[in-house]
């Protein structure tokens, strides 16, 4: 076993373990912390995949930004801690998730499972090719090459290349605009009654101020010092 394999297994255990903790704990704050551990483990996977840029970006975006937002909202919605962590359909969902994992494992795992579909009327027509009748052990077209030294610059160039990702790149900016506008509107929105009360209070205050500002024919304007002393008494 090479060192990299050992590191991979440690990371895998950390990620899966903390992910399981996240979805089962009733203490949401600790759940958020374990989520950060999972994010960190995924950043470790990116390093093993020779992608330092995304490892660092993962730390920056997921740990530095998204988990901060999550922790903030855990704190803002406190009092929800003592609740039962699972809803009614948790049991069936667990079975479904386990089934999904099993299917994915069979489909993309290292196992080869030959299924003979030739006798089945519709399926045999649907899956013509040889590989489709074999479940798992997908024959990937491996590149067997190193990551180029300049992959960061290549990525940057592709992002602003009209023939590649310029359009989604620009759309990101507009998406961000929409997100900011929407989130500010939602998060700052108050109950209608509150808003009405506030508006009324402001209107009242303004009316009072206006009334106070009406020039009174009998009262000549006093110098500033006199005003201050009157206000003191």
């Amino acid at each position, binding site marked *: *076993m*090479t060192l990299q*394999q050992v590191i*991979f297994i440690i990371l*895998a255990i950390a990620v*899966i373990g903390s*992910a399981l903790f*996240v*979805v089962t704990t009733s203490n949401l704050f600790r759940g958020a912390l374990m*989520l950060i551990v*999972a*994010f960190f483990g995924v950043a470790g*996977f990116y390093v*093993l*995949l*020779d*992608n330092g*840029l*995304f490892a660092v*970006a993962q730390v920056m975006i997921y740990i530095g*930004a*998204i988990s901060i*937002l*999550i922790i*903030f*909202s855990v704190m*803002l*919605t406190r009092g*929800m801690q003592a609740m039962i*962590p*699972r*809803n009614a*359909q948790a049991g069936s*969902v667990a079975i*479904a*998730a386990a089934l*999904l994992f099993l299917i*994915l494992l069979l489909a*993309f*795992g*290292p196992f080869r499972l030959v299924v003979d579909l030739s006798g089945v009327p519709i399926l045999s027509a649907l899956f013509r090719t040889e590989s489709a009748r074999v479940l798992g052990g997908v024959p*990937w077209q*491996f*590149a067997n*090459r190193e*990551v180029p030294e300049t992959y960061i610059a*290549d*990525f940057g160039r*592709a*992002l602003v290349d009209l023939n*590649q*990702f310029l359009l*989604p790149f620009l759309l*990101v900016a507009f*998406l*961000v605009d929409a*997100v900011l506008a*929407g989130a500010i509107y*939602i*998060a700052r929105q108050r109950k209608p009654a509150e808003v009405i009360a506030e508006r009324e209070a402001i209107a009242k205050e303004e009316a009072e101020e206006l009334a106070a500002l009406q020039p009174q024919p009998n009262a000549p304007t006093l110098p500033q010092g006199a005003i201050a002393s009157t206000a003191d008494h």
Partner: protein
Amino acid sequence: MGLQNAINGIPLEWYLIVAAALFSIGLYGVLARKNAVAMLMGVELMLNSVNLNLLAFWRYLAPESAAGLAFAAFVFVVAAAETAVGLALIIAVYRSLKSVDPETLTQLKL
């Protein structure tokens, strides 16, 4: 076992299995939790597993192409945007209903 195609001694399937596990756990988190914030955490786990898959395929199948990187980057962006709006909604709902359980959200207005 395709070990001759392994990079750093790790076959591609290992990443796929971890990502599949992460995705299933995230799915369980989304569907089985009673707290909306916890459900969002499940979504984050699922998005992470997707990104892990994207970058694993990028590394093993097309390391020169920027497509895998660009898609992963856009997943980052969309994940951040989704979290921001989702949590803003949860906070708004919490302030008016004092609850973060999606099952209590039975009205169309707050």
